[in-house]
């Protein structure tokens, strides 16, 4: 209830912000057109629009982070003519999805320290091996991890655009590819003035399988033995049904 009331209030504040610029208004308000990306059988990707207002001139940076997972990076080496996975490095709590958008180029509106602290941009993501701090020899693995995620369209290759309509209203479109990982996402909005973050807001976003696909996946995960038996029986029945029309051939 209280959250709903707060959201209604922030929407009001947004409208108020349009009409006038009250000094007491929040410096930054933003929301998404939808808080759920539902994956169904015909899912081929989706997008949501983030929109908001600031209390005056400034730059806005939007970061989208997917649920964190441990990811192992393996390097191939040629052994007796065959390429095999040789060395590996596991990185802890890697965001499974990462996108960033900004109203102006990041290095024009922030300092390296600000980018590092708020992890603005893939180069400033804190990717730390599970077994300790990042050593120089881990660098190629870190770079490969980012490259691989970018190739899979899970990390953005470029910084997206936050568009301003006038001085205070802004919007950006966040696109999710068909292979988007499921889970709880965070959409962070930063208001930047004089190369430092003066206000921030974090909005949750859920990416989840819905409908039949969700049920199949959940069932396969929770009741894996029953799922296996059902998979076999279904295949058997399908095979039997398929042979019927050809019975007298």
């Amino acid at each position, binding site marked *: 209830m209280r959250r709903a009331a707060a959201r209604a209030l922030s929407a009001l504040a947004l409208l108020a912000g349009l009409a006038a610029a009250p000094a007491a208004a929040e410096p930054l308000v933003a929301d998404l057109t939808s808080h759920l990306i539902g994956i169904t059988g015909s899912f081929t990707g989706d997008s949501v629009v983030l929109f908001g207002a600031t209390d005056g001139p400034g730059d806005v940076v939007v970061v989208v982070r997917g649920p964190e997972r441990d990811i*192992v*990076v393996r390097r191939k080496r040629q052994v007796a003519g065959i390429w095999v996975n040789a060395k590996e490095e596991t990185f802890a709590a890697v965001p499974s999805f990462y996108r960033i958008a900004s109203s102006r180029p990041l290095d024009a509106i922030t300092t390296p320290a600000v980018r590092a602290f708020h992890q603005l941009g893939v180069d400033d993501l804190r990717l730390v091996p599970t077994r300790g701090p990042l050593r120089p020899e881990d660098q190629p693995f870190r770079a490969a991890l980012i490259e691989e995620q970018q190739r899979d369209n899970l990390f953005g290759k470029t910084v997206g655009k936050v568009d301003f309509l006038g001085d205070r209203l802004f919007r950006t479109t966040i696109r999710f590819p068909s292979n988007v990982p499921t889970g709880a996402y965070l959409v962070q909005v930063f208001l930047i003035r004089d190369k430092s973050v003066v206000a921030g807001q974090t909005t949750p976003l859920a990416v989840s399988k819905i409908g039949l696909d969700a049920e199949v996946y959940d069932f396969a995960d929770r009741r894996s033995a029953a799922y296996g038996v059902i998979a076999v029986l279904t*295949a058997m029945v399908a095979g039997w049904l398929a042979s019927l029309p050809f019975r007298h051939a």
Partner: protein
Amino acid sequence: MGPVRAPPALPNPSTSAGPMEIYLPIAEVSLDVLVLLALGGVVGFLSGVFGVGGGFLLTPFLIFIGVPPTVAVASSANQLVGASVSGVLAHWRRGNVDFKMGGVLLAGGFVGSLLGVWLFSLLRRVGQIELVINLSYILLLGTLGGLMLIEGTRAFLRGRKPGAGRRKLHQHNWVHGLPLKMRFRRSKLYISALLPLGLGFFIGILSAIMGVGGGFVMVPAMIYTLGMPTAVVPGTSLFQIIFVAATVTILQAINNRTVDLVLALLLLVGGVIGAQIGSRMGSRLRGEQLRIMLALLVLAVAIKLTFDMTATPAHLYSTAFVQ
């Protein structure tokens, strides 16, 4: 201002991706339904023509179109259950299934698949599963393809020579000295049960690791090692494959959660139609012609895989989620 022109036709991303895309819940990728149906159809056609399951083509191709290798292996096994049921029913109506032989093969196959799924999980954890899947394919396909090609070519040449000598019906060797002899009436054999047991065990491991029913190993082994009459071979092979593939499917579902039922069913629909067309086509070709064609196909897959493994990879690094 010039005359108003129609805006250039931009490719609409939602339609260029294909209206027939379907999201596979376990593989977690969207693939074109028509591609999956066609793939099932081609594999089914080949299995109809040659009397093998076609898993050896299906799994590598699924990996090629973007299905994660572990899901490809497990879902191929699931698809195989349905395809084998369909095939066995056809052979059973003609009385061409040796259930006793199938049962003994099965006992070995069950133990083999238990060991195979355990191996699969272990290899996946240490990051070498793809290497083992690929190496197994190259070794098996290379050897079998080579042997079949030699044998098929010889038979082909012999068939052309008028008055070529007939082969002995039965050759006795060390195999017939093994203990635990059993009588297999339908196969007209009196051999040691250890032979089909061992063969089944080996195929069970292959099924679990490679996602294949092992028909392309089983069929030649039944003919040349066990000495079974050719007529009962496909039906009996398929009969035991049902159970081995079912065991593999259930074990993969429990241990690795990699069985995609939606994927398997789509492949199955195309597969059964292809198999019926294929078996009609196959009956018009001569046996040795079929074997030479199958040998060339098997060798082509082996050469492709060898090339992939030895050529410098486009990307030296690979990533995977830690489970």
